[in-house]
């Protein structure tokens, strides 16, 4: 009642008689989804760039000479398994089983690190044999596209560790649950991008 009295005395105040109820963080999931969609467009452009430059070998090595599909299969499985372990972590979170959730998050993080390790090994190997990003248009586009995805996984892993510490300190409070939901979407989104990478860059590249 006091608020209605305030409105009556001060006519410069303008707001709804009954403020629409916005719980804290109520729009975070939609906002984060829109961020993911804009990130998706970044990758779309990088894929388009790769599509344009992917055939410009500059008399250098092509995909069939460079890519080892066994390695990519390992990387793909690491990322796919990390997707479901994150899913298990989210189920544990919903069930309020904090310790179980932390274990699944740790497993997810280790799988993410494994993915990064394999990718760094691949990049190091390519640069070592003289197939670095400056070698040809194809390799420039390749390193930018795959590297951008790798950077996302890297930052996702940092975020994951941060949230594990947060949960350890403050428990599964509402805010932490929301953050974990965002990271979960981010992580699954990266797996979706990886489907595009292993299909268009590696499989179709080797197929040519």
């Amino acid at each position, binding site marked *: 009642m006091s608020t209605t009295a305030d409105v009556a005395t001060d006519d410069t105040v303008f707001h709804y008689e009954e403020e629409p109820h916005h719980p804290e963080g109520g729009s975070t999931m939609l906002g984060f989804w829109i961020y993911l969609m804009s990130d998706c467009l970044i990758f779309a452009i990088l894929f388009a760039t790769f599509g344009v430059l992917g055939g410009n070998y500059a008399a250098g090595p092509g995909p069939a000479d460079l890519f080892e599909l066994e390695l990519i299969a390992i990387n793909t499985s690491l990322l796919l398994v990390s997707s*479901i372990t994150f899913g298990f972590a*989210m189920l544990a979170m919903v069930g309020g089983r904090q310790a179980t959730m932390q274990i699944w998050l740790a497993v997810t993080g280790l799988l993410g690190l494994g993915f990064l390790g394999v990718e760094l090994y691949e990049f190091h190997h390519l640069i070592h044999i003289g197939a670095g990003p400056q070698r040809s248009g194809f390799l420039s586009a390749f390193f930018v596209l795959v590297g951008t995805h790798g950077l996302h996984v890297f930052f996702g892993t940092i975020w994951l560790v941060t949230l594990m510490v947060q949960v350890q300190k403050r428990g599964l409070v*509402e805010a932490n649950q929301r953050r974990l939901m965002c990271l979960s*979407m981010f992580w699954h*989104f990266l797996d979706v991008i990886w489907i595009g990478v292993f299909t*268009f860059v590696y499989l179709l590249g080797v*197929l040519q």
Partner: protein
Amino acid sequence: MSPAHLDGLDETEAPDHDGHHDHGSGAHGSLRGYLTGFVLAAILTAIPFWLVMDRPLDSAQATAFIVVGFAVVQIVVHMIFFLHMDPRSEGGWTFMALIFTFIILVIAVSGTLWVMYHMNTNMMPTHEMDAL
């Protein structure tokens, strides 16, 4: 009571929906959902790798089409079982954003490839021009 009764369909949906909304719930999925998604994704990943690594099909073009087809299906599987996309979550706005992004994506990617392909075929490289 009577207004609720008039648009009964909306009224019965709404409270349940909003309750979910606040906790950002409904986006967690279930154990069964994750396992289904995982098994489907594993199969949809394994087949394209097998097709390219062992080459059971002679035609590279046919293999490419199948591999891309599997990728599209796998992306949809991930969207449904891992990202829990559904046309009604957040009042349909996530789905709307997805459709919008998809349209922009198609325009940007197909437009780029189309224009650059024609640039490539219509522009003669300098060394060939010298030969004339």
